[in-house]
């Protein structure tokens, strides 16, 4: 799949796991993406299916292509890793498709390949997730392989050694990536003494310490039906789906063991006296990341915050930040902001990059733009255009089964009911200029943002 923004490089250093590195440090934003993209779906589009075993699945059924996409998440991701076993959830994710029951790694991978089944697992901060993609004709085999991976993973010594090595190499490559370096520094600064401040995939040392017993314990204790969310899209009817999820997940224990991390994570909000952190980095370009307190999905101000964030620094070339930093002055190729939410923290993030010599100027423009909007709000036209964009771009997401299943799962992880899809447009449309002013005053506090600069910046940072 070609990323449309990417150079069409003649060859690529792409490896199976390399994409794992592409995401931000804190892991996948648990909620921001979902609502930013969700909106006017007809509720009738989504069927709520409850299996005889009591598993609830959201389904968007479409028989135009003979394929089925199934996505699921278990509550409790990398944030549950013991501090001396950081990377445990990530390593378990890498190993669930490396052999199960009587099938060793090679046999399991052959079965997947022979039936053209895609099965992938992933650990984020708050969730341990899986995705299955299959042709309709091979669905029984696909469901069985998913069931085996979840309920009878082998964790053979050779596979464990191999995946451990891959993760250690991935961690080492991350150390050379300024984007990851920036987000790690930001996470440490925002969340000291909290799992969110720790590296999602651990360190080479903590990865080395993980035993086969740890991995077996993770699978046995963390994968359970309570806290499981499942979504599906494609060529499958509700009765088949109900039977499928009972087959795949029914043998899991009902309740997960209590997590080995504090039940209530503190809300980790940046404090007002955070000083900019400069991470020296060779080369001509500097990267900056800023973060302040965000707004959780479900908050009455969330729709206004989403519109505000889009007007300030949404994708594209029309935002206030892009106009000030990029279009008018050419200081940056990319300057953006967004809302990111996790189970225990909500962030407002600004990112950009610029030449070393212009870091101070770019950060000054960001600060000025935020302060300007905090003081004066936005124009009626900006609000109207943002409302049209965020409601109108929603159906664009509903064009393929993989995307639909993933989007539904995002909405479920945000804690919204299925009817949210009916109301999202109205929630956005009823936001007024006064709402934006109120939320801007709450959200845009340039003095209360953590700042990390990775690069050769020298002058004053603010």
């Amino acid at each position, binding site marked *: *799949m*070609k*990323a*449309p*923004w*990417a*150079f*069409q*490089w*003649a*060859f*690529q250093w*792409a*490896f*199976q796991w390399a994409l794992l590195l592409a*995401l931000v440090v804190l892991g*996948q934003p648990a909620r921001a993406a979902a609502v930013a993209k969700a909106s006017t779906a007809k509720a009738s589009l989504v069927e709520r299916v409850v299996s005889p075993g009591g598993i609830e699945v959201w389904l968007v059924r479409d028989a135009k*292509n003979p394929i089925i996409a199934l996505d699921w998440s278990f509550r409790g991701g990398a944030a549950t890793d013991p501090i001396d076993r950081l990377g445990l959830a990530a390593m378990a994710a890498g190993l669930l498709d490396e052999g199960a029951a009587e099938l060793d*790694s090679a046999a399991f*991978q052959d079965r997947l*390949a022979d039936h*053209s089944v895609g*099965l*992938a697992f*992933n650990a984020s901060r708050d969730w341990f997730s899986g995705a299955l*993609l299959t042709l309709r004709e091979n669905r029984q085999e696909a469901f069985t392989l998913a069931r085996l991976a979840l309920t009878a993973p082998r964790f053979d010594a050779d596979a464990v*050694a*191999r995946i451990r*090595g891959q993760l250690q*190499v991935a961690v080492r*490559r991350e150390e*050379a990536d300024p984007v990851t370096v920036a987000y790690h520094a930001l996470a440490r600064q925002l969340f000291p003494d909290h799992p969110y401040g720790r590296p999602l995939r651990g360190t080479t040392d903590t990865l080395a310490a993980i035993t086969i017993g740890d991995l077996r314990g993770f699978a046995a204790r963390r994968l359970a039906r309570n806290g499981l969310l499942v979504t599906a899209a494609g060529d499958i009817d509700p009765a088949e789906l109900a039977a499928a999820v009972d087959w795949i997940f029914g043998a899991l224990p009902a309740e997960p063991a209590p997590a080995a991390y504090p039940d209530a994570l503190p809300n980790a909000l940046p404090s007002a006296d955070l000083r900019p952190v400069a991470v020296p980095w060779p*080369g001509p*370009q500097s990267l900056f990341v800023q973060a302040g307190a965000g707004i959780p999905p479900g908050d009455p101000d969330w729709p206004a915050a989403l519109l505000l964030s889009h007007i300030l620094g949404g*994708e*594209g*070339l*029309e935002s206030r930040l892009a106009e000030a930093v*990029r*279009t008018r*002055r*050419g200081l940056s*190729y*990319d300057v953006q902001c967004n809302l990111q939410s996790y189970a225990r923290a909500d962030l407002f993030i600004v990112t950009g*990059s*610029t030449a*070393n*010599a212009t870091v101070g100027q770019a950060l000054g423009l960001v600060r000025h733009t935020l302060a300007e909007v905090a003081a004066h709000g936005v124009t009626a036209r900006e609000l109207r*255009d943002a409302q*049209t*964009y965020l409601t*109108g*771009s929603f*159906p*664009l997401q*509903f*064009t393929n*089964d*993989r995307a639909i299943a993933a989007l539904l799962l995002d909405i479920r992880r945000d804690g919204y009911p299925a009817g949210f899809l009916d109301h999202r447009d109205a929630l956005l449309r009823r936001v007024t200029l006064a709402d934006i002013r109120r939320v801007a005053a709450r959200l845009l506090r340039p003095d209360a943002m953590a700042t990390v600069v990775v690069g*050769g910046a020298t002058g004053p940072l603010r």
Partner: protein
Amino acid sequence: MGVFWRPFWGVRFAALALALMVPAAASARVFDPETFTLANGLQVVVVPNHRAPVVTQMLFYKAGAADEPAGKSGVAHYLEHLMFRGTATVPSGAFSREVAAHGGVENAYTNQDQTVYFQTIARDQLPLTLRLEADRMANLRIRPETAAPELAVVLNERRQRTEASPAARLREQVQAALFQAYPYARPVVGRPAELAALAPADARAYYLAWYAPNNAVLVVAGDISAGTLRPLAEATFGRIPARPVPDRVVARGAALASDQDRRIELKDAQVRQPSLSRVWVAPSHGWAAEPAQVYALEVLQTILGGGATGRLYQALVVRQGLAAGVSVDYLADALGPGQFSLGVVPGPDVAVADAEAGLNAELARLLHDGVSAAEVAAAIRRLQVGAIYARDSLQGPASEFGVALTTGQSVADVEAWPDRIAAVTVEDVDRVLRDVLGGQGSVTALLLPDPDAPTPEEELEDVAAAQGMARGAVR
């Protein structure tokens, strides 16, 4: 590359597609496209997909970085950025504002062989995107007050994506070594000095030379038919007169095959984990002595790559424990020469030389033994299933047709893809294996940590000193 960066877009789905190694292959029997050509020569492809009331519009110009005049590298991509900066009647930025205000998303990218502008939007807004895209095909205005900051944006893009990344810098060196006199030797974003010296007149000249309806392909995928699109396209693009354009195959010149294997090392303090790649010039759709070679190479790529069951992964990662990861890439969609490449990331405690020795041994074994009938049959099956998964996408098929039609292929070629893959034999694969991977002229690239390089802290002091001097000079 895009006119702007979308950091989060697609990562999640890309991961699953990668797990499947689904090729972006297309078949007319799968996509069932309709085609027509306007009187002014604009080719139009319609890919019906009635999943949602949405369309993706993609305009492909048969002009890319490889079609730039000597000394003006980067001008094709610079022009791509300037295409968002206004026309005679549409102000700078208004194109993007209009599309977004009607709920659409858009971007653009420049490649060696084509420049592409695309939008995805509700079906009933298609007249808007057709009108705006046709307008900037004919009426672009390049103004000094917007051209100057946009050049600064492009220089930022180059610094961010190339100069800040040792791997990206090495890729530039590899392409230069591999292609030598052929224009693919130049980076799409441009060589730094040439890029910095570009003037608005250079972009204007490129625009006038190549941006004509008879040198473009319009692809519209989604909830639409050719019958609906045709009058809309005629009322917009149809009003633009055809213009003579240069023969770009002639202008690019010939590619001389090198008979020398070369080696490039890049040591950098930023690198913590070494890696290794080897790349060969290979037949492509636009550059093959016989077209069957390309399909055989696609099968070979699937046998060698092909995810966790791929031959190279099984040998180097699973059985020998020499590598943490491998990659096998084949660039077939090119008007000029294609390329076939292997990549290896050594395991955590493996010396890069040992990993390379393992790769060499595996290559020698492969060249000696060839591939088996079972491997070829399995690869063909996987590639054909990939075509079914490829249908579950709006932009994927549109992109496939656009790229094909700008790299010397026809709609019929794309239609015949599953049949041509199915016709590949063991002998075909063994022949391209020995011709390409057994041939001369490869480039081996090593990305290595540099134990002697200044630490980031030392370099920072150098940067500070250099900036001080620069400021002094200005005063």
